[in-house]
């Protein structure tokens, strides 16, 4: 048995080389996915419109179909639109849609928390390059200490085959 300490391939490097080799091949443990990855793109951003501050803050919700509601001391002044996204992927595959929350900020250190709601949590994809659309709603929580300004932010949308 060779002495591992003197081997020309130190153990750690060996591990990485093995992993690399497996990825190149597609390790035998993986069931291969012949259809390719799904992809998701944004067609229109979600816009909560214009809000008027008052009192102790509140919440504003845009539903995935674009309806607006305000609670607490916030007044909704309109101009909202739900976001729109499209998934392209393998025919008849079912995908899950996962959305992360986000902090919107005004570029001056003031932040606002947003939670997003897609119109569908799962979708069955249509074939070829067809765009499978879904819309995005969301809820903003504004505290009474919120400062006026234009706020924006980005959030992750992840689509996964199940």
């Amino acid at each position, binding site marked *: 048995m060779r002495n591992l300490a003197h081997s020309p391939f130190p153990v750690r490097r060996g591990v990485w080389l093995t992993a690399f080799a497996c990825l190149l091949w597609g390790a035998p443990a993986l069931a291969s996915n012949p259809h390719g990855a799904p992809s998701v793109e944004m067609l229109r951003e979600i816009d909560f419109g*214009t809000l*008027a501050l*008052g009192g102790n803050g509140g919440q504003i919700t845009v539903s995935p179909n674009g309806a607006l509601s305000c609670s607490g001391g916030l*007044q909704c*002044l*309109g101009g909202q639109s739900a976001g729109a996204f499209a998934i392209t992927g393998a025919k008849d595959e079912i995908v899950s849609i996962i959305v992360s929350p986000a902090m919107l900020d005004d570029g001056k250190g003031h932040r606002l928390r947003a939670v997003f709601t897609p119109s569908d949590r799962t979708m069955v994809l249509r074939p070829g390059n067809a765009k499978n659309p879904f819309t995005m709603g969301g809820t903003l929580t504004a505290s009474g200490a919120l400062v*006026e300004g234009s706020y924006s932010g980005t959030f992750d949308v992840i689509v996964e085959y199940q």
Partner: protein
Amino acid sequence: MLRNLAAIAAAVLFSIAQPVIASDLLVAPTRIVLDGNSGGEVMVSNTGDKTTTYRISLVLRRMDATGQINPLDEALATPSDAAALDIINYAPRKITLAPQQPQTVRIGVRAPPSLAPGEYRAHLLFRAVPDAATIDAPAPDAPKPGQPQGMSIALTPIYGIAIPVIVRIGAIEGKAVLANAHLTPVADGARVTVTLQRSGNRSVYGTLDVLAQGSSTPISTVKGLAAYTEVASRDVSVTIARDKLPAGPLVVRFTETDPAGGGAVVEAKVARGA
């Protein structure tokens, strides 16, 4: 004599009760600052439960040294006031909104090149126009039939919101300074009075905080405080409850939140005693 009047009165139809006007008005934002040839917008919303018509007009207001804002008759307008009324235009002038319905009012400035540099200010006044007073059932405490009916009075308030529209032409600058900060004991606490002084040809606008010396958390805050160009200074008075009053010295701080102010901060120590 009264009995004769009563006989006449009994024959007269009376309207009682209050006119029904739910003209709840929301205006946002609360201040517009524009330069030479630009525009802005204001949103108006009907937060009441009845469809209401609103009239929008451009009016003049004057601030005095106590900080009070008073209406100014156009007949008493200075050339600067007249220029402000000339260069600021807006549309529409009359809007009818259903409950919870907002609408945008567009504001534009068209300043001729010959206009001298400076700050020009007028105020956009939004007022609900009342419907004709409605006639309802008799009030519960009305005198019994046969007794004198008397007069019924319906005094309808037309209430409105006025926001400043400030136009800045050319190179203008202004600075705020705090002076004469002192504390006077009152029932239940103390009153801090300070004079906000203004120099240059620009109005100043910002937030006044009262803090314990060395602390960074304000004890009391007043926002939306302005000193307009027609006053060199204005007074501000803040009442502090006894339980919020610290033992040590107090400081007042003014932070300019006007976009042209650059966030400038000035402070002054508060002297105790009148």
